[in-house]
């Protein structure tokens, strides 16, 4: 007997799901842009498949990153994914034993215990192959059920999982999660009842079956139980493409495409859509998002991605994000929410076509220098940073020029952050021209926002782009300037655009190490908090920003350092208004501890400082 009518809900659901997935995936792949399609072709041929498959195994099944984030959550996800995977793989192997190696219909391994009542001869007869499978299948089922228990607990008491919140579900999600949570308990019941009626099953199902048979008419119950099990599977498969569980198949596709080098573009595209569908809404990002402090939970990444997926992106959700990148750091699926958000902003703001024709008239006097210093827009609002840099540059004896001394052209990053990359390109062109004409070999900026865009978007062959923290470290290491250590304590705040944005965590610390004693803080480097001043956010008001600032200050100043050091004029300005602790830019720290190398340099330094 290899068929019963109850398999139809499952089988129908499965076929439906496969059809939907086929259509969706094909549509996505077909609408990849030109470079995406090219990369897809290359990727399929150049062996990227293997590391990608490994990652699929590690992430989609074992949830390695999730484990790193949170052991309990990791186990929960792994039990479902890997457990179910094992159930399928082992179930197939098991079914082969009973069918003599024939190819079975896909439902056969799933409902094997209905079709085959393998009566036991001995308890725990592990030495026989069927006995082994009976054991292992029950074990895997137990493994999954343990994850299910954790999931139930998490829903009620998310705090036990170290999470402040859990994701709120949409309508489809509720159908899907209910059916999903029913699948394995129903399978357990169906197999147990069957075992109770026919004395089959492994250590779990047999024991339970015997237990139930004592007081339940299991011979009448098992058949409806198989029906229920099949139905739960069917419902899950049918609702899956519209629920968050779509992430399960989509993430696999995402991992392959990412290995092929495909990235989220500046406009929404099919790859960003794949990313959006890959979001499991695990809620890890919601937890780390500082928007919660501002009371703007609806614009946290998971909800933002959900809105995008269901096609009702909300202006405020688009605009209301500091683009600090904390979510990206923790995301188990590594979804590039920042890029997606910026692309969504492009959609939102694309009607705005700035025109900077007037910049044609801007032609500052030709200056030639080796080092070009750029304070940036924000730098001009923190004159202490400018002054410190000029003092240091003078003391170093380098041939430098202050590029934006007399007004600047914006670097273009703020426009990029608003999604206006075409407009940003105009500014990039102008600045590129100014830098190229200066003949400088090194470009130093005080602003991480500027640094990121100069580093990533500008094409300046032969010009090295440095943030001033990198450059100052180089000056100290090369002996061009000397600093002393005054023994005071300091906390270093990683600016988002410098740290997570540009992966510069060490240079500022190495530099500071020579001058102060650095106190550790609870959240630093990749986990550093945003100061709240971000130009990435377009909509948050002043009061909300202050809440975020104050929370960050609380973490930073927990060790009561003498000074709070940062390397971004915007962070400095933001923090300065929220604390009595002295807030300094790293350049100011250097400038204060500058040891004159010679008499001439000393006089120059004094002159500048005065």
């Amino acid at each position, binding site marked *: 007997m290899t068929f019963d009518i109850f398999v139809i809900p499952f089988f129908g659901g499965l076929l439906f799901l496969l059809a939907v997935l086929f259509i969706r995936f094909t549509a996505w792949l077909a609408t990849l842009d030109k470079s995406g399609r090219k990369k897809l072709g290359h990727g399929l041929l150049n062996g990227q498949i293997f590391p990608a498959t490994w990652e699929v195994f590690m992430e989609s099944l074992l949830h390695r990153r999730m484990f790193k984030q949170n052991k309990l959550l990791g186990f929960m996800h792994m039990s479902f994914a890997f457990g179910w995977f094992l159930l399928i793989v082992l179930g197939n192997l098991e079914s082969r034993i009973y069918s003599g190696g024939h190819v079975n219909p896909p439902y056969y391994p799933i409902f094997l215990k209905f079709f085959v009542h393998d009566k036991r001869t001995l308890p725990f007869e592990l030495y026989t192959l069927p006995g082994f499978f009976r054991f292992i299948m029950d074990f895997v089922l137990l493994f999954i059920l343990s994850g299910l228990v954790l999931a139930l607990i998490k829903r009620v008491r998310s705090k036990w999982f170290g999470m402040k919140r859990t994701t709120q579900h949409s309508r489809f999600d509720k159908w899907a999660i209910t059916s999903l949570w029913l699948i394995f308990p129903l399978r357990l019941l169906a197999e147990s009842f069957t075992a109770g009626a026919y004395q089959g099953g492994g250590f779990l199902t047999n024991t339970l079956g015997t237990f139930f048979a004592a007081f339940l008419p299991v011979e009448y119950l098992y058949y409806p139980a198989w029906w229920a099990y099949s139905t739960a599977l069917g419902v899950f498969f049918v609702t899956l493409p519209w629920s968050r569980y779509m992430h399960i198949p989509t993430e696999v596709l995402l991992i392959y495409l990412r290995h092929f080098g495909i990235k989220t573009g500046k406009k929404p595209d099919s790859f960003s859509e794949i990313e959006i569908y890959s979001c499991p809404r695990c809620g890890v990002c919601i937890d780390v998002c500082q928007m919660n402090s501002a009371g703007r939970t609806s614009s946290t990444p998971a909800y933002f991605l959900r809105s995008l997926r269901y096609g009702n992106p909300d202006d405020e959700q688009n605009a209301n994000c500091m683009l600090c990148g904390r979510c990206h750091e923790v995301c188990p699926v590594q979804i590039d929410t920042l890029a997606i958000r910026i692309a969504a902003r492009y959609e939102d703001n694309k009607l705005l076509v700035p025109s900077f024709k007037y910049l044609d*008239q801007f032609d500052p006097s030709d200056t030639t220098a080796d080092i070009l210093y750029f304070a940036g827009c924000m730098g001009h609002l923190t004159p202490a940073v400018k002054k410190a840099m000029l003092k240091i540059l003078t003391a170093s004896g380098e041939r430098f020029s202050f590029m934006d001394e007399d007004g600047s052209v914006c670097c273009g990053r703020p426009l990029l952050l608003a999604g206006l990359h075409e407009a940003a390109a105009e500014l990039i062109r102008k600045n590129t021209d100014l830098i190229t004409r200066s003949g400088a070999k090194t470009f130093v900026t005080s602003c991480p926002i500027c640094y990121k865009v100069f580093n990533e978007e500008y094409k300046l062959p032969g010009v090295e782009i440095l943030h001033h923290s990198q450059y100052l470290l180089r000056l100290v290491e090369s002996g061009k300037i000397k600093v002393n250590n005054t023994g005071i304590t300091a906390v270093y705040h990683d600016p988002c655009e410098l740290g997570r944005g540009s992966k510069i965590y060490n240079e500022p610390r190495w530099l500071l190490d020579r001058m102060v004693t650095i106190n550790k803080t609870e959240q630093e480097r990749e986990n550093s908090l945003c100061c709240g001043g971000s130009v990435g956010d377009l909509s948050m*008001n002043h009061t909300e920003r202050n809440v975020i600032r104050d929370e960050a200050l609380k973490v930073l100043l927990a060790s009561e350092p003498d000074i709070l050091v940062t390397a971004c004029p915007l962070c400095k300005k933001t923090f300065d208004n929220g604390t009595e602790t002295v807030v300094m830019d790293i350049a100011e720290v250097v400038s204060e501890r500058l040891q004159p190398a010679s008499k001439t340099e000393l006089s120059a330094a004094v002159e500048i400082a005065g």
Partner: protein
Amino acid sequence: MSGAVEKVRFGFSVNKDRQIDYDANLKNVSDIVQKAEPTFNLCISCGTCASTCTAGKFTDFSLRKVILMVRRGETKGLENEITKCMLCGKCQLVCPRGVSTRNLILQIHKALKTGAL
């Protein structure tokens, strides 16, 4: 009537009135913007934004004026005016009233494009 042929050449034409006719002006852009970015209402025309403005260095662009023009319904020509903004955000940093200037620019432009009809 208005399309009349100028039969007699007088050597001059009727000067356009500079007066803001508030009752005749449409305020829909202003209505949209104040809903989209409530801090729009908070501007006190101090001019800090315009004085620090990166674009204002090269042009006569002034967010203070733009805000007033929107409030008064003087939206003609404003669309072009706004394209001068580089969105750098200096104004936001110096604004004493906490106006979200960058979003304001985006919202004003959006309203001009979509809501001015």
